[in-house]
């Protein structure tokens, strides 16, 4: 063993037995022994040497026990300390995620008040009382700018919430049909208003899959929202679930919208790529969906012909994927 290796090993041993900064410390480890000796001293003088020796023996045993306890506690805490170092990074990331979600949520409420007060002022400006008021037009413009900027802040808070959702998947057994139905229910109201029919062909005997429910919900909701947006008014969104071999199952969401132009198809999952008019989409939705499905060990593809709608196929593994998670 080289001297260098030995030094390293000794340093590692020292580190393992060293008191970590946050380890529980035993304050004054010899205090009980001293107290016992003090208590035993008068007994020794009063009742003879036999009692004094007995007290000293007891003190020695106490001393050994306390030292052993102190050493064991230090060792255990030291090992935890090293393990904690590994977890610290993950905890930091989770904390940043929580913080940004918290900030986003807290900002939404004051933003709502600013927007509402501006809208109320706009309503007041429309009343007869302000009709002859020379600067009314300018005030209306200013209020319009305030509302625009509030909506801009709203987009920022929503992006922060998206960041908070970029976390490690939490894998559990789940029923895909149930998740699909949950999300279809969320978009159903808006679809009805636009006269869009949501048709479901859900295979009844699908096995449960091991995946992350909140992240899959996000993906399904995003694709369903895109589908209803693409159709605009009157049409159909069809959701199909089916087994795909022994190890995978598929969820296909297709719409009767105008479809995706051939030149746009290769870029559809690229970040910041959007076919929506400026201000109506960030171009991040499908990119996030793609990332989530890849992380869950699955695959997402799109097929479309201009004028004939689009179909997104999500293929998910039934068993957890160790490689990706």
């Amino acid at each position, binding site marked *: 063993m080289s001297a260098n290796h030995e030094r390293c090993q000794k340093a590692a041993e020292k580190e393992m037995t060293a008191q970590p900064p946050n380890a529980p410390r035993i304050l004054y480890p010899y205090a009980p022994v001293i107290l016992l000796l003090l208590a035993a001293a008068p007994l020794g003088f009063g009742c003879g040497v036999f009692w004094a020796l007995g007290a000293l023996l007891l003190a020695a045993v106490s001393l050994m026990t306390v030292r052993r306890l102190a050493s064991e506690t230090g060792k255990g805490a030291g090992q935890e300390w090293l393990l904690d170092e590994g977890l610290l990074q993950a905890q930091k990331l989770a904390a940043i995620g929580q913080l940004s979600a918290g900030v986003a949520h807290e900002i*939404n*409420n004051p933003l709502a008040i600013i927007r509402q007060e501006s809208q*109320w002022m706009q309503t007041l400006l429309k009343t007869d009382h302000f009709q002859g008021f020379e600067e009314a037009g300018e005030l209306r413009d200013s209020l319009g700018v305030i509302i625009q900027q509030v*909506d801009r802040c709203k987009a920022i808070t929503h992006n922060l919430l998206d960041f908070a959702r970029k976390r490690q998947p939490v894998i559990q057994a789940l029923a895909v049909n149930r998740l699909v139905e949950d999300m279809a229910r969320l978009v159903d109201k808006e679809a009805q208003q636009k006269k869009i029919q949501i048709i479901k062909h859900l295979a009844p005997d699908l096995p449960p899959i091991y995946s992350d429910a909140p992240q899959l919900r996000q993906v399904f909701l995003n694709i369903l929202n895109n589908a209803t947006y693409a159709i605009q008014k009157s049409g159909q969104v069809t959701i199909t679930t089916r087994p795909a071999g022994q190890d995978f199952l598929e969820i296909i969401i297709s719409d009767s919208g105008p479809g995706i132009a051939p030149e746009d198809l290769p870029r559809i999952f690229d970040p910041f790529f959007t076919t929506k008019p400026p201000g109506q989409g960030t171009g991040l939705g499908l990119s996030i969906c793609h990332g989530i499905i890849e992380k869950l060990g699955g695959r997402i593809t799109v097929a479309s012909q201009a004028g004939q709608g689009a179909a997104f196929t999500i293929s998910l593994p039934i068993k957890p994927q160790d490689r990706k998670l």
Partner: protein
Amino acid sequence: MSPKVLLVDDEERFRTTLSKLLKAHGLEVTDLGSGREALEELRKKAYDVIVLDVRMPEMDGIAVLGEIKKINPLLEVIILTGHASMDAATKIMWLGAYEFLLKPCPVEDLLDKIESAYERKTTREAKKREEGD
């Protein structure tokens, strides 16, 4: 006939201004600051649509929604909150909320949702009456 709307939000300024805006659009609106007050009010007076916040002291919107549906399952509830999560939204929709809106939300969007929620309530009530006959 305009719908009777009960607005429940613990943020006073938000509640009172939204109430004024909805009234300016011809709706009959009562605004209250807590879930408990809202439930007491609903036991005394008939409403069509409830606009409900989620994060409130004492009793949160999810618990209030559950109680509202016990009082009258035909009452339509629109959730209007600054604190959104996919899990909460799913839970709320399964509890029977009509819509889930995230603050800040244009008053026009809320008006649309109130109108369609009111339509749904009147349709369901008419259907129930027919079934009763």
